């Protein structure tokens, strides 16, 4: 069973829809026991960093997330909350990845919205995916490139398109909205 973390962020339902299309059963839950017992956990999200962190802390979910031992996939805000710190309302995050999240400098349109390809990539999530394949992004803050970076994308500057540390995987783009390429990446995660 896949558990999708329920918190005050949008887009949770579309992750479940994507899993259903892949023939995979899932539950949306904020129950720590259900999260700890799931085969895999997805930490999705579109939203604002500080209110999301506050929501997680109030329910003790911050501690649950970092203690997970099974494969975890953070998506978009989920990835950003797994970093050290976010400039979005000066937010201390979960510190799983050794990277900070910063606001794009305003030299091009913000948010970075639409389909973009990869500069670099490595790791199991990208099995069968090519650098020129496009995935869908929508974000105004970007995770810096660090030792946890597993894929990069270029918009205004190179940033982490994907990160990994031990059992924690994450994508800044939305695999659940990235057509067949996104489905491939989700399937790779499900097969870990």
């Amino acid at each position, binding site marked *: 069973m896949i558990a999708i973390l329920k918190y005050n962020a949008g887009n949770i339902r579309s992750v479940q829809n994507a899993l259903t299309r892949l023939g995979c059963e899932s539950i949306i839950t904020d129950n720590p026991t259900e999260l700890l017992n799931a085969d895999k956990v997805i930490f999705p999200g579109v939203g604002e960093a500080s209110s999301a962190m506050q929501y997680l802390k109030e329910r003790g979910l911050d501690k649950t997330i970092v203690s997970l031992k099974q494969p975890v996939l953070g998506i978009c805000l989920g990835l950003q909350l797994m970093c050290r710190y976010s400039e979005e309302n000066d937010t201390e995050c979960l510190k799983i990845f050794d990277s900070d999240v910063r606001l794009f400098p305003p030299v091009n349109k913000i948010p970075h919205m639409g389909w*973009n390809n990869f500069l670099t990539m490595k790791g199991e999530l990208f099995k069968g995916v090519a650098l020129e394949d496009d995935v*869908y992004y*929508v974000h105004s803050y970007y995770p810096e490139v660090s030792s946890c970076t597993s894929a990069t994308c270029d*918009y205004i500057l190179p940033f982490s398109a994907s990160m990994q540390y031990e059992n924690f995987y994450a994508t800044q783009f939305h695999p659940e909205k990235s*057509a067949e390429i996104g489905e491939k990446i989700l399937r790779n995660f499900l097969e870990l």
Partner: protein
Amino acid sequence: MLKRRIIPCLDIKDGRTVKGVNFVNLRDAGDPVELAKIYVKQGADELVFLDITATVENRKALAGLVERIAAEINIPFTVGGGIDTVDDVAILIKAGADKVTVNSSAVKRPGLITEIASQFGNQCVVVAIDTKPVDDEWIVFVNGGRTPTALRTVIWARKVEELGAGEILLTSMNNDGTRLGFSIDITGEVSRNVNIPVIASGGAGSMEHFSEVFFNTGCSAALAASIFHFGEINIPDLKKYLMNKKINVRL
């Protein structure tokens, strides 16, 4: 590199697409989900669904339709038509819409943009602006283009950005339905004056029109309806054409 987006728009009335469609392999030409699936397969980058009836009773039916779309479609989609309150937005987002568009209601009450943005994020709010020149001045129209306002288009565009809009859907009313091409001047001007993505709309009639608007303006996306519905331009051909013209699109 970030790609320029091609966005088919589907008009919805009582849960069905209006304006004819002309796809040979479509079982039910009136079903928005069937049509949407074909566009996704062809490589559409996003979809927009506009509910042109948009009454309170239809809102619930629309939410049901949005749920069906969200279950079947693996690319982002926007829903609009008659959204007046944050509660209207909540219903559509909960049903699975990625973004919503607001138009007249945002002109009437600009605070609505900020309310939606703070609850669901800027990326969720697409402000639709219908515009045409009156005495050499581009101004904003509301009520489906029937009512002129005192707002100048560029000033309103900057204002909606400031209020929290994540994107602008700019329709040049004089071009809309003409198939004579997008309006390059106002699309370029709005795009230069805001730092959020602008979707060009109104006037698409040929593949050249798409390369023209992408080449000559900073718009991030181009939207069209009838030329796609009638199969006059199919998306894979259009994208190949744009690639040959050195415009970056997703293939």
